[in-house]
């Protein structure tokens, strides 16, 4: 106990002692979340202190059903890890499974929640993340309220949440705070751009090297004109440009903030303009790579977007070798893999496959709050209703019920 920074109060005549948590150490104040920016929504983020994080969650959920179970993981670090769930919403089997997986961990040190993520996820070889991480208490709370669990780790502001699915990658917390029509549109936009980020450079390579007849005649002439003086085949060009773009992005993340503007000058001028003017790369390729880059930034979850970024390279190679056939082949492989994935037993592609209309309301589109009466994708079937129907338009707007013949 003393080793865990607690004072012991020993009283003469008593055979038990009181452990007092009197420890304190320098810590960061609650700040704005930097990785998940929103325009509208709370601006609090977890901090490195796990107790601050639990307090932020506890502040938002006032029910004795919210359970937090602490445990120490790490032989030397004895890092405090808190498993968080709401009893009656989370399925008991799920909680038992996650506890079992956490207990299995025997490791020297846990310095970040990423250690735990890799040690407990279902398919360790997959590029796709099966556990979501978030530094926003409102995201964690909303997922807890859908019957999922969270794992808070001392020493990092990033909490782990599972089980999650593919559609979770398209969701931003703001979707639930902004008006539902716009949120739905933006969600579809993200879906389209996930496709663009994965396949656009590969499609460009395939079409310009194998399937020129796909191009409308004026576009064919323009692309032919710009490719007239380029030294490399389209596939090599695409790979070079994509690598360069990844390098610029990586440099932008790693560089000290004071040098940030230098990287944009080098990136924009050298890679963009100068390379085209020198005839090293064709202008359409620069456009394709930039659109792809922007598309990959629209994916709200970073760990999902790096998976897509990584998959792009083998797809480009397949497209350069086999054309559209290669792209289709890669699409089939990715789809098969996604259908095979599970996050703590929940299919990764749910609610699309297996299809659940109630879940689709919350994933393919963002249905208005008054219509989402059941919790989506909840495994615990005993307590599914989220709200009454008192706020549906039929019950809320005077006269509407009568006009519709009394139906709700």
């Amino acid at each position, binding site marked *: 106990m003393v080793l865990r920074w607690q004072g012991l109060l020993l009283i003469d005549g008593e055979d038990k002692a009181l452990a007092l948590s009197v420890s304190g150490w320098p810590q960061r104040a609650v700040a704005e979340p930097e990785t998940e920016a929103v325009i509208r929504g709370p601006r609090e983020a977890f901090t490195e202190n796990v107790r601050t994080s639990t307090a932020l969650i506890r502040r938002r959920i006032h029910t004795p059903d919210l359970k937090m179970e602490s445990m120490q993981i790490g032989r030397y670090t004895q890092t405090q890890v808190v498993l968080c769930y709401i009893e009656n919403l989370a399925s008991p089997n799920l909680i038992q499974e996650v506890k079992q997986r956490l207990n299995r961990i025997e490791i020297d040190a846990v310095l970040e929640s990423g250690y735990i993520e890799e040690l407990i996820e279902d398919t360790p070889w997959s590029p796709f993340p099966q556990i979501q991480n978030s530094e926003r208490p409102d995201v964690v709370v909303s997922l807890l309220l859908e019957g999922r669990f969270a794992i808070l780790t001392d020493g990092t502001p990033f909490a782990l949440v599972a089980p999650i699915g593919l559609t979770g990658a398209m969701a931003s917390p703001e979707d639930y705070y902004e008006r539902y029509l716009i949120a739905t549109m933006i969600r579809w936009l993200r879906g389209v751009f996930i496709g663009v980020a994965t396949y656009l450079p590969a499609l460009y390579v395939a079409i*310009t*090297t*194998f399937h*020129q*007849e796909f191009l409308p*005649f004026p576009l*064919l*002439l*323009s*692309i*032919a*004109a*710009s*490719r*007239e*003086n*380029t030294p490399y*085949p*389209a*596939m090599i060009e695409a790979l070079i440009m994509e690598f360069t773009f990844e390098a610029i992005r990586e440099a932008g993340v790693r560089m000290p903030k004071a040098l940030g503007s230098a990287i944009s000058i080098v990136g924009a001028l050298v890679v963009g303009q100068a390379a085209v003017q020198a005839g090293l790369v064709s202008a359409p390729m620069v456009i394709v790579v930039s659109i792809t880059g922007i598309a990959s930034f629209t994916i709200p979850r970073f760990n999902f977007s790096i998976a897509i970024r990584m998959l792009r390279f*083998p797809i480009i*190679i397949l497209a*350069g*070798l*086999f*054309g559209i*056939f290669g792209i289709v082949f890669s699409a089939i492989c990715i789809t098969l893999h996604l259908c095979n994935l599970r996050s703590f037993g929940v299919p990764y592609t749910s609610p699309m496959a297996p299809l659940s209309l109630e879940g689709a309301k919350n994933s393919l589109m963002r249905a208005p709050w008054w219509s989402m009466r059941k919790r989506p994708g909840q495994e615990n079937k005993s307590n599914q209703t989220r709200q009454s129907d008192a706020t549906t338009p039929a019950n809320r707007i005077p006269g509407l019920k009568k006009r519709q013949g009394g139906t709700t």
Partner: protein
Amino acid sequence: MKGKSWGYLGMAALTLVCTGCWDSTEINELGIVTASGIELVDPHNPHSKVRGYVQVARPSELSSDPNGGGKTGDEKSFVLESATGETAAGTLQKVQQSLSRRFFFRDRRVTVVGEHFARRGMTDLLDEALRNPDARLRSFLVVADGCRTGDIMRLPYPLARLPADAIADLEARHAGVTINVVQFIKAMTGKGDPYVSGIRIVHNQASTQKKGVFELADVAVFRRDRMVGWLRGDAAKGFALIQPQSHRLRLESLAVPLSPGRWLTSQLIILNKTVHLTWGRHGPQVSMAIEAQDDILENNSSLMLDRPRDLHLAEFLLGNTMRQQVLAALDALQHQYQADCVGFGDAFFAAYPRQWRKVEGHWRQVYAQMPITVTVKVHVVRSGLTGDSLRDQLTVKGE
């Protein structure tokens, strides 16, 4: 297990050194064929060799430079190569051998056919266009009228980057008759006969193009695959009104003289054609009803177009002129060429298959004798803001 996965990785890495599928061709290795042409080397000898032309785009000249975009009407935007040989396909292969880039026929927009080649028969050319999986079947056909094929293909067009683009755009406007390879072959192998729009070079003193520009005019009439003659002037205009694709006809203008020097000009908006077939005791009969909606472009006549009586008169006059044109076309087709370009044969075969079989062997004679009645009805939709002509309005004022 570990060795196996390394093996897979190694195999994947090896694909990087593969050259990939043999179909792969970079865009800058393609010679984009925009138009091809064919003619007889010696126009007066039907057994002479043929000369094929290939117009290939030069992308480097077409690139849009940062300050202004690609130039139009540039002679340097394309390369014209030709070769002589026994057949149409043979000449194309010969041209290919002399060019460093692989031909890309999928955007061949136009095929220009020499008149004498067309008179000898088109099957040779069409077989290549139909058989070649690369060639697109929707490329337009035109027959060079009064000039060599090469002259037309050499000519840059001032308002288009590539002359073939200009021809395709002219065709796509549907101002006259339009036919592409598929439609031609359908008409040729069906019960009717095909037709092709003519193309000729116009020299114009005022034009900035000293070498002239090309225009689509007149109709080449075919019997099966051989060209038999031209429909010119009124007959060509009339044929445009009754051709199988007449519903797509646009921009056709019609000028009617009312008295010397006083004209009424209209422009066609919508054309509706209904063909009514009957097969009576005296053989097949056709009655054709054409319904047109027109705009009045100019009115120099004494008609007051804001009065219903005068408007009906104008409609009658326009309709009558159109009818005369149609009759001129039908007369030439039935009696001069005996070519069924309107496609009555197909229609009769569909409507009266049993009777058709009896006349199938001598359909051309039956067709030449067949009575065809034509009614034309014109509706003037917009007659303009003023009723009577401006000239008449001035005379009222006494000037």
